C-alpha cells in the first residue's frame, strides 16, 4: 500500500491500537442504555397500530391512575411550532413535521408513530400503563406505494404539503395538497441530440425496497430537566450539537439550556441524527422532576426511526458502438415516508456521477407514503441509483462487447468533468479505483464452475466538509489531551488523534482523545457525510499548529531569543546555535514558563473532492432455490490518504456487507394494512458472518488537495456498488437481469423459471 512506502509520514498510515479499544472489548464502554441515574424513571411509548388514521381522542386517565405511574405525555405537552422552518445542523427542517413525528398531532401517518408516553417506577409498570391509554381512531386508507402515492386521486397524508420545485417559485398556499413534496430537475447539454448520436440505447425500470441501517444499538435518551430550567441529555447520537438544537427548538427553549452528553454509540450510519426521544423524555422529566430514560425496542427502531426509502426509477443510457457514453436520462421517485425529506436530491446528483456524460437529464420526486419518515443511510440515495446505472452500463458493455472495466475507465469522471447537476470535479480517483480492480488478482483470475458469475460496479459519494472544532492540552509528561466534538462511530477519535500526533511529531499513543459534551467543546456538525476524519482532522491539525506557535514562544523565552529565530519541526523546537528541545522536554517546562498550553483549531471552509469506489464480486446461484452465495469479493476505493488503514478497510468491508444485505435480502415487508411484518432481526435479514466471505480491500490513494494530508472520507461510498455488482454477477452466472431489490430467493427463482 502506498502509505507504507511513504516516508513523508511517521504516524499516518500506521495501525496503532484504538484508544477506545480496551473499553469496547471488555464491555466497559458506556452506551446510551447503560445510563443509570439516582431516582431515574423508565418510560414507554404508545405507538400507532395503524398506518394511516385520524386520532379522534386520547384518554390517558386509566394509565395515570395505575400505581407506579409518575407522568403521561402527549403532543399537547409539546409547544405548537406553526410553519417554522429551522436550520438544524442537518439541513433545514419543517418544525411542524418534526414535532408531529416526535408525538403525533391529530393524525398518525405510519404504524409505530408515537402517540403518548408514560414514565413509571419501572419499565414493566410503564409498559402496562401504555396499554391502558385509550385512543379512538378514524381509519384512513394507507398509501404504501411510491408511484401510487403520486396519482391524482391518491389519499393525501399531509394537508400542508405542496410540490416544491427546486429552483422555481414556491407553490401557491391555496393550491391542492399532494404527496409529492419536492421535484428536482437537472439538465446538461441536449439529451435528444445525445441519444441521436447513440448506437445503442438501453432503458429499464428499477424498484428498490425500503431498508434500514440496521445498527445494533437501539435509539435511547435519558433526560433530566432540572429545577433551574437546565436540561441534560444523555444519548448515543451522531451529533450532540444537532440533538441540542433539535431538542431546544422542539421544546422552544434556548440552546444554552440544553447540555448533551454523548455516550458511546453502537452504530448510526445516518440513522442517529434525527431526534425522536429526547423531547419526550424531557417533558416527562419536567412533569416528575426526575430523570427519565427511554429506550426503543428493535421493532420500534424498524417501525419508527428513519430508514432509507424504497424507490422506483426509470433510467436510460446511450452509447456509441465503440464504447463512448453519449447521453443519459433518469426519472427517480423516492419514498419520503410520512413527511418530506428523502435523499432524492443527492440521488439525482449521483445517478450519473461516475461518468463523463455529455448530455443528461435527471428528474426526481420526494413522495410521502405511510411509512416511517426516511433519513440518511450511508451515501443517502446513491446506492439506489448506482444499482440502476451500473446495471445498465454492464448491459451496454455486453451488447457492444466491451470489457466493463475498460468501458468505465474510458468514460470515467475525472478532473474538469462537469456533473449533470452542475459542479465540476477537482482531482478525483474514479479511474484509479477501476484500474485497481482491473489489475487485481481477483479480476485477473478466471472464474470457473457452473452457475458462477462475476460482476463489477462503481459508486460515488460527495463527502462533505462542514464545521468542526477541537482543543488540545499539553500535559507535563509530554502527552496531549485532545478534546473534540465529533461522536465516534468508526474509530474517528484515533484517526483524529493520529493527525494531531503527526503534526506535533509525537506518537498516536501520546495523544489521549476524548469526545466532549456540548458545554465543553466547540461546535461540531454531525458525524456524517464522511466528514469527520477530514474536517475534525483539520481542526486537530490547526490545534497542533496553535500548540507549535505557543511552544515556539515559550522556547524563545527560555533561550532569551526572539520568536522569529525559533521554529517547530521534527517533534520539537529548534533555535539558534543548534539549540533544541523535544516536545517532551518542552512539556516538562510548561509549569515554569507560564502554565498550560492549550491549542485550539476549527475547520469550516474546507470542502471535499468526492470519493469513488469500484467493487468486484463472484457469486454462485443455486438455480433450483434462487439463492445466491457470495464466493469472493474485492473492494477498491480512493481514500485520498489512509490515516489508519485498518479503519479504512473496516469501513470498506462494513459498507460492502451492508450493500450485500441490501442486494440480497433486506426489505421492509409490508402487508396490505401497512404493517411491517418483519420488524425483527429474525425476518429482517442483515447478513451474518456465514453469509459473506472475507471482503478483500484495495486502498487507492489519490490525495485530496483540500486536506493537509490528503484525506478523503471513506465511510459512505463502499455501500454504493454492491447491489449492482451482485446483479451483474447474477446475470453472468445465470443470464437473468434483476431490476428489483432485494434479489431474494423467491424473486430470483421466479426470474430463472421464466427463462
Amino acid at each position, binding site marked *: 500500500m502506498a502509505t507504507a512506502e511513504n516516508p513523508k509520514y511517521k504516524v499516518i498510515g500506521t495501525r496503532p491500537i484504538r484508544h477506545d479499544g480496551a473499553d469496547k472489548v471488555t464491555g466497559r464502554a458506556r452506551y446510551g442504555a447503560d445510563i443509570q441515574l439516582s431516582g431515574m424513571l423508565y418510560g414507554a411509548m404508545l405507538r400507532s397500530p395503524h398506518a394511516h388514521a385520524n386520532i379522534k381522542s386520547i384518554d390517558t386517565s386509566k394509565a395515570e391512575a395505575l400505581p407506579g405511574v409518575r407522568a403521561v405525555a402527549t403532543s399537547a405537552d409539546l409547544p405548537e411550532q406553526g410553519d417554522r422552518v429551522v436550520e438544524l445542523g442537518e439541513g433545514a427542517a419543517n418544525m411542524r413535521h418534526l414535532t408531529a413525528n416526535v408525538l403525533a398531532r391529530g393524525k398518525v401517518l405510519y404504524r409505530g408513530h408515537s402517540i403518548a408516553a408514560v414514565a413509571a417506577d419501572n419499565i414493566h409498570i410503564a409498559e402496562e400503563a401504555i396499554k391502558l391509554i385509550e385512543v379512538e381512531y378514524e381509519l384512513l386508507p394507507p398509501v404504501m406505494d411510491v408511484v401510487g402515492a403520486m396519482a391524482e386521486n391518491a389519499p393525501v397524508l399531509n394537508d400542508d404539503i405542496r410540490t416544491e420545485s427546486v429552483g422555481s417559485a414556491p407553490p401557491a398556499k391555496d393550491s391542492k395538497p399532494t404527496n409529492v413534496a419536492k421535484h428536482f430537475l437537472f439538465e446538461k447539454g441536449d439529451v435528444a441530440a445525445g441519444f441521436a448520436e447513440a448506437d445503442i440505447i438501453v432503458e429499464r425500470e428499477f424498484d428498490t425496497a425500503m431498508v434500514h441501517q440496521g445498527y445494533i444499538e437501539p435509539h435511547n435518551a435519558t433526560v433530566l430537566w432540572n429545577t433551574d430550567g437546565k436540561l441534560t441529555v444523555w444519548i448515543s447520537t451522531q451529533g450532540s450539537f444537532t440533538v441540542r438544537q433539535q431538542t431546544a427548538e422542539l421544546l422552544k427553549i434556548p440552546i444554552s439550556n440544553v447540555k448533551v452528553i454523548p455516550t458511546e454509540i453502537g452504530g448510526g450510519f445516518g440513522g442517529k441524527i434525527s431526534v425522536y426521544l429526547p423531547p419526550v423524555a424531557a417533558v416527562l422529566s419536567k412533569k416528575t422532576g426526575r430523570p427519565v430514560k427511554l429506550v426503543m425496542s428493535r421493532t420500534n427502531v424498524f417501525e419508527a426511526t428513519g430508514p432509507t426509502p424504497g424507490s422506483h426509477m426509470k433510467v436510460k443510457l446511450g452509447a456509441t458502438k465503440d464504447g463512448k457514453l453519449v447521453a443519459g436520462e433518469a426519472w427517480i421517485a423516492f419514498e419520503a415516508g410520512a413527511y418530506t425529506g428523502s435523499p432524492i436530491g443527492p440521488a439525482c446528483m449521483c445517478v450519473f456521477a461516475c461518468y463523463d456524460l455529455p448530455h443528461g437529464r435527471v428528474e426526481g420526486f420526494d413522495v410521502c407514503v405511510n411509512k416511517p419518515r426516511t433519513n440518511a443511510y450511508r451515501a443517502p440515495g446513491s446506492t439506489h441509483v448506482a444499482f440502476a446505472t451500473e446495471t445498465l452500463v454492464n448491459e451496454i458493455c455486453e451488447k457492444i462487447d466491451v470489457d466493463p472495466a475498460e468501458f468505465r475507465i474510458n468514460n470515467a469522471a475525472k478532473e474538469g468533468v462537469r456533473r449533470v447537476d452542475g459542479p465540476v470535479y477537482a482531482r478525483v480517483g474514479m479511474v484509479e479505483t477501476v484500474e485497481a480492480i482491473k489489475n487485481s488478482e481477483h479480476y485477473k483470475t478466471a472464474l470457473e464452475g457452473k452457475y458462477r458469475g462475476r460482476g463489477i460496479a462503481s459508486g460515488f459519494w460527495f463527502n462533505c466538509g462542514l464545521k468542526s472544532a477541537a482543543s488540545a492540552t499539553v500535559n507535563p509528561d509530554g502527552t496531549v489531551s485532545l478534546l473534540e466534538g465529533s461522536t465516534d462511530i468508526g474509530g474517528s477519535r484515533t484517526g483524529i488523534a493520529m493527525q494531531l500526533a503527526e503534526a506535533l511529531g509525537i506518537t498516536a499513543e501520546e495523544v489521549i482523545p476524548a469526545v466532549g459534551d456540548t458545554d465543553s467543546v466547540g461546535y461540531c456538525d454531525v458525524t456524517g457525510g464522511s466528514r469527520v476524519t477530514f474536517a475534525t482532522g483539520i481542526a486537530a491539525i490547526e490545534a497542533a499548529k496553535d500548540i507549535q506557535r505557543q511552544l515556539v514562544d515559550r522556547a524563545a523565552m527560555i533561550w532569551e531569543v526572539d520568536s522569529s529565530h525559533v521554529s517547530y519541526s521534527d517533534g520539537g523546537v529548534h533555535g539558534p546555535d543548534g539549540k533544541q528541545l523535544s516536545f517532551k522536554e518542552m512539556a516538562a517546562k510548561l509549569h515554569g514558563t507560564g502554565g498550560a498550553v492549550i491549542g485550539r483549531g476549527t475547520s469550516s471552509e474546507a470542502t471535499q473532492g468526492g470519493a469513488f469506489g469500484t467493487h468486484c464480486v463472484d457469486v454462485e446461484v443455486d438455480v433450483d432455490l434462487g439463492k445466491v452465495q457470495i464466493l469472493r469479493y474485492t473492494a477498491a476505493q480512493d481514500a485520498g490518504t489512509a490515516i489508519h488503514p485498518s479503519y479504512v478497510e473496516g469501513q470498506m468491508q462494513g459498507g460492502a456487507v451492508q450493500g450485500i444485505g441490501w442486494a440480497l435480502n433486506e426489505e421492509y415487508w409490508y402487508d396490505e394494512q401497512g404493517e411491517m*411484518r418483519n420488524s425483527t432481526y429474525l425476518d429482517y*435479514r442483515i447478513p451474518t458472518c*456465514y*453469509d459473506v466471505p472475507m471482503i478483500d480491500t484495495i486502498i487507492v490513494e489519490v490525495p485530496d488537495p483540500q486536506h493537509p494530508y490528503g484525506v478523503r472520507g471513506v465511510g459512505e461510498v463502499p455501500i454504493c456498488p454492491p447491489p449492482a455488482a451482485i446483479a451483474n454477477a447474477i446475470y453472468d452466472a445465470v443470464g437473468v437481469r434483476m431490476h428489483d431489490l432485494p434479489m431474494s*430467493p423467491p424473486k430470483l427463482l421466479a426470474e430463472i423459471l421464466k427463462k
Partner: protein
Amino acid sequence: MHAFDYQSPSTVAEAIELMAKHNGSARPLAGGTDLIDQMRVGRLAPDVLIDVKKLDELNVLSADAAGLHVGAAVPCYRIYGDETVNSQYTALADSCHIIGGIQIQSRASIGGNLCNSGPAADSTPSMIALGGVCVIAGPSGSREIAVESFCTGPGKNVLEPGELLVEVRFPARPANSGSHYRRMIPRNEMDIAVVGVGASVTLDDSGQNFVSARIGLGAIAATPLFAEAAGESLAGQPVNDESLEKAAAAAREIASPITDMRGTREYRIHVTGVLVKRVLQAAIVRARGEQIDYCRGH
C-alpha cells in the same frame, strides 16, 4: 413483562398436579428459548412457569430394543452429541445442529420445539420421518400419539390442560436405513425455515431399491406435514431420478403454504419438491453407509 411465579417440581406426578392446579394459566418451561421470548414480547402471559428440566423422565436419552427414547427436555447439544442418534437417527442430529447457535442448542429441547408447534420447527419433520411417537402424561394417565398427529395449527397441539410431553420414542432402525434433514433459508445460518424437509429411507441389500420411505415437511402448511403418499410412492421402486421426481411431485401436491415475508406460496411449493429430492438423495447415500457432502444451511 407480566409478573409470574416459578415452580420446579422433581417428579412428573408433581408437575402434572401443579399444571392441573393452575388450570390453563401455567406453562411448562423447558429450555425457554421460545417461551421466554414470547413472554417478553407479550404474546404469552402465564402466571406460573413449571420448570420441567429437573424431571428424570424428561432427561432420558437412551436406546433399547424398543428403539430410541428422547426425553422432552433433552437439549439439542446432547442429542447431536449422542453416538446412536448420529449413526442411526441422523436426521434428528441434522435438525438439532441447526436450531439456533451454540447458546440456543445448549438449552433448546425437541420437546419445546414440538410443543411450541411452529409450522417451521426444524426437528418436527425429522421426527415425523423417523416415525416418532409422543408419550404424553396427564391427570388421567398416559397416552401416545404419532408426531405427525401432534400439531393442530400454528402454535396449537393436542395437549389438554394439565398434560405434559414426557418423551418422543423412535422405532429401532432397520438395516440399510438412512435419514437427513435440510431446510431452505435465505441466509446461511440464524434463520427460520422457508421450507424444511426430513426424510428417512430403507433400501434393500443391493442399495438400489427402496423398501420404504417416510417424509416430513415443514413450513408449507399450518402444521408440519407427514407426506405419506410421497413416501409410499417410493416403496418397492428403484432408486432413480424418476422415482425421486414422483415423490417430489406427491409432496408438492399436499403443500398448502401461505405467502409471507419469508417466501411466496409458489416459491415454497417449488422448493418443497427441490428439497424432497435433495434430502432423499442424501438419505440414500447414508443408507448405503456413505458420507454425504453438504454445507449446513446452504
